[in-house]
C-alpha cells in the first residue's frame, strides 16, 4: 500500500490525466479499427451482426490471395505508385522551389504568388475534381484550346487507358504543391539569416547557399513532407472519384477507390475490402520506414 501511494504521486496523476484521454481516443478511432480490420480480413463475414454471429468463420489469407490475383488491384497499385511519385518527386521539389524563391525574394510580389499557389488547398476537392474533369473533358476548354492550334485534334487524354491518369496527376500536382510550399516557407523562416549573410560574405553563390545551408537544415522537414506525401498518396480517393470515378474500365482507379468499390458497390465483400485496407496500412508503414532510413543515412542535421 505504501509503495502504491509512493508511486501515485501528483506528477504521475497529472501525467495520466493529460495522456490518458489522448491514448483512449487514439485506441478507439485508430488502433482498434486497424486491428479489427486485420481480423475481419481473415473471416468470411459478409454483412449482418458481427459479434456473436455463428456463421463467421476464420478463412486465413484467402482474401489476400484473391486480392493479389485481381488485375484491378495491380492497376490501382500502379496508379498509387504514380501518385506517390508525383507527390514526392513533383510536389515536394516544386513546393521547396516556390518557397525558396519567395523566401529569398528572388521575385517581386512574393505574397501574391504565395496566396495563388496555396489557394487550391482551400477549395473543396470535389469542386476541384469536377472543374478539372470538365476542363479535360473531350468537350471542355482544354480540347478547344488545343484545337485552335491543331484543328481536328482529338482529346484522347481522358479515355486513352494509358494516358487517362495524366490529368489526375496534373491536378494532384497543381492542388497540393501549395501545401508543401507553406511548410517549407515556415521552416525557411526559422533559419538564422546571419548564417546566409555570412556565407554570402564568404563568397558563396546562391546555389551553394541552397545546397550547403538550406537543404541540410531542412532535411527533417523534407522527411516529414515525404511522410505526408506518401500517406496522402495512399489514401487518394476524393479527387480521383470526382474526376474519373476510377474509369475508364478502372484504369484510373487507386487502392482506396478499389477498396470502396469492393466494400460498397455492386456486391459488397467486406473481408476483401478489409484486406485491401490492411495492405494499404502495411505499405504505408514500410514506405515511411524506408524514408526514415534514407534520412538517417543521407540527411543533414537540423539546427
Amino acid at each position, binding site marked *: 500500500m505504501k509503495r502504491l501511494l509512493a508511486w501515485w504521486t501528483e506528477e504521475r496523476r497529472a501525467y495520466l490525466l493529460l495522456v490518458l484521454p489522448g491514448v483512449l481516443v487514439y485506441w478507439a478511432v485508430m488502433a482498434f479499427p486497424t486491428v479489427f480490420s486485420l481480423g475481419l480480413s481473415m473471416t468470411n463475414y459478409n454483412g449482418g451482426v458481427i459479434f456473436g454471429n455463428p456463421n463467421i468463420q476464420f478463412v486465413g489469407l484467402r482474401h489476400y490471395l484473391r486480392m493479389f490475383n485481381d488485375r484491378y488491384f495491380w492497376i490501382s497499385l500502379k496508379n498509387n505508385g504514380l501518385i506517390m511519385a508525383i507527390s514526392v518527386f513533383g510536389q515536394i521539389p516544386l513546393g521547396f522551389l516556390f518557397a525558396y524563391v519567395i523566401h529569398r525574394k528572388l521575385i517581386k510580389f512574393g505574397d501574391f504568388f504565395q496566396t495563388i499557389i496555396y489557394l487550391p488547398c482551400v477549395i473543396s476537392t470535389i469542386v476541384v475534381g469536377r472543374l478539372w474533369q470538365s476542363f479535360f473533358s473531350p468537350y471542355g476548354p482544354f480540347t478547344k484550346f488545343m484545337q485552335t492550334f491543331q484543328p481536328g485534334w482529338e482529346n484522347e487524354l481522358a479515355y486513352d487507358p494509358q494516358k487517362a491518369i495524366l490529368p489526375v496527376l496534373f491536378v494532384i500536382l497543381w492542388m497540393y504543391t501549395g501545401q508543401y510550399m507553406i511548410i517549407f516557407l515556415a521552416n525557411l523562416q526559422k533559419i538564422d539569416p546571419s548564417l546566409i549573410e555570412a556565407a554570402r560574405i564568404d563568397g558563396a553563390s546562391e546555389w551553394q547557399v541552397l545546397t550547403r545551408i538550406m537543404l541540410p537544415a531542412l532535411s527533417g522537414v523534407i522527411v516529414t513532407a515525404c511522410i505526408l506525401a506518401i500517406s496522402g498518396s495512399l489514401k487518394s480517393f476524393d479527387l480521383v472519384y470526382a474526376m474519373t470515378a476510377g474509369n*475508364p474500365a478502372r484504369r484510373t482507379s487507386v487502392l482506396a477507390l478499389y477498396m470502396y468499390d469492393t466494400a460498397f458497390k455492386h456486391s459488397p465483400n467486406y473481408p476483401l475490402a478489409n484486406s485491401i485496407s490492411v495492405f494499404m496500412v502495411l505499405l504505408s508503414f514500410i514506405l515511411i520506414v524506408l524514408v526514415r532510413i534514407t534520412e538517417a543515412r543521407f540527411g543533414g542535421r537540423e539546427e
Partner: protein
Amino acid sequence: MLRKSTLLLLAVLLVVGIFAPAALAQEEKITITVLNYFDLTAPGAERELEEVWREFSRRNPHIIVEREDLFLEAFHQKVEAYAAADRLPDVVFMWPGGRSTSLHTLGLVKDLRPLLGDDAQYFNPAVLAPQAAGYLAELPSTMTSSHALYINVPLLESLGLSIPETYEELVAMVPVIKGAGLDVILMGAQEDWVIQSCLFSMIVGRLVGDEKLHEIIRGEAKFTDPEFVNALEFYAQMYKDGVLDRKIMNINYSEVNGLFASGRAPFMIDGDWKTANFLTDVTTGEALIPVDQQPNFKMTIFPAIPGEITKKSSSGVVGTGYGMSSKIPDGSPKEAAAWELIKWLQSKEVQTMRLETAGTIPSRIDVTSDNIEPLVVERIRYYDDIEVYTEVLDNVLEGEVYLPLNVGLQEIGLGLATPMEVAERVQEALEAWRAKRQ
C-alpha cells in the same frame, strides 16, 4: 364555502385536464426513419419536398418523419452500411432487384402484399409481381424502360437525315453526322453501369432473348455461347462503325444532359428517366430544353439490329419504390405509420405530381394530368413504340456477376478486351457465385 380538500381536488383535475390530453398526444407520436433516394438538383425537387414530404407531415401530425436524402453512389453506400450494421431505417427506397438484391434476399424488408390488401385494385397488376426474392418487397411507383434513343429531330433533319429504322441506316448516317463536326450518339457512360443498363441490356434482349438469358442464369447454358458472344460482338462493332465513340466513357452522367440539349449530337442513349433532367424547374422557371423546344425531341427504341430474334424491344423493369424494414413488429402502431407513409408515397396525389414534374409513368391506373410538358407526353407516347420488354441485366444478375460485365463493356469499347474474353470472365463470375451459393 368549499372545503380545502374539494379545492385541492378541483385544482388537480384542472391540471390533469389541461396537461393530460397533451401528454397523451405526445405519447401517440411515432417516429419513422426514412432513407430516401433523391436528387436535390433535379427540376421539381422543391415541389417534391413541399407536396410529398411536408404535405405528409401536415396530414399526419402524429407521425414524425426523420428523412435522409441521398443520391447515386452515396445512397447505395449508405444502404449497404446500414444493412451491414443491421440498422436499416424503417422505410427505405429500393429497386425491385439489382442494387437492392441483398435487401430482398436477406429478408431485411417485409412483404407488402398483405398490407396492400384491397388497394391492389388501384395498381397496374404487372407492377405487383413478385420481386427478387419472390415477394413484394417494395411498392413500385412506375414502370421504367432502361433504354431509349433520344433524337434531336431538327438537328437530324438539318443534315438531310431522318429517324433510322434499321442499324444499317444508322451506320450510313455516320459520315454525314461526323462530317458536320458532330458526334453520333451521346452517352454519359463514365460510370460503368450506364452502358450495360441503358444499351447492352437492350442488345441482349434483341439478340439473345430472355429465354436464353434465364437458361444461362440457371446454368443450362453459358455466357460463352454464340448468342451472348454475338451480342458483345455487335456492341464492339458499334465502335468500329463509328456509331459509338470512346469519348462516351469520359462523359459524366449529368454532363451529357447539357451536351445533348445544346445539340452536340442528334442522338443520345439513356434510360427513359432522363427526360426529368430536361424539364422546367418550377423554382427557377428554367429548363435545359425549354417547353417551346421540347416538341423537337423524340424518343424511340434502337433501330432493328441485324439477326435480332426479338423485334421492337427495349429493356425494362418495374420501377423503384419504398420498402419497410422487417424489424418493425407486425400489427404495431409503427407498422401502421410506416405503411401510411409508403401508401402516401404511391398515392394518386404523389404519382400525379411525379408525372407532372418528372414524367414518371405511374404504376397506378387512376392517375392522369393535363399539366404536363411536351417531353413528358413524348415519354408516355414512347411506350407505344415498345412491343416487347426484356430484362435489364443488372436487375437479374448478382452484383459479382454483372460487375465484370460492366467493366468488360468499357474494356471492349477501349480495345482492351475481346468479346469472348469478357464473356469468359462473366461466365467465370457466374460459376463462382453459384459455387458460393451451394
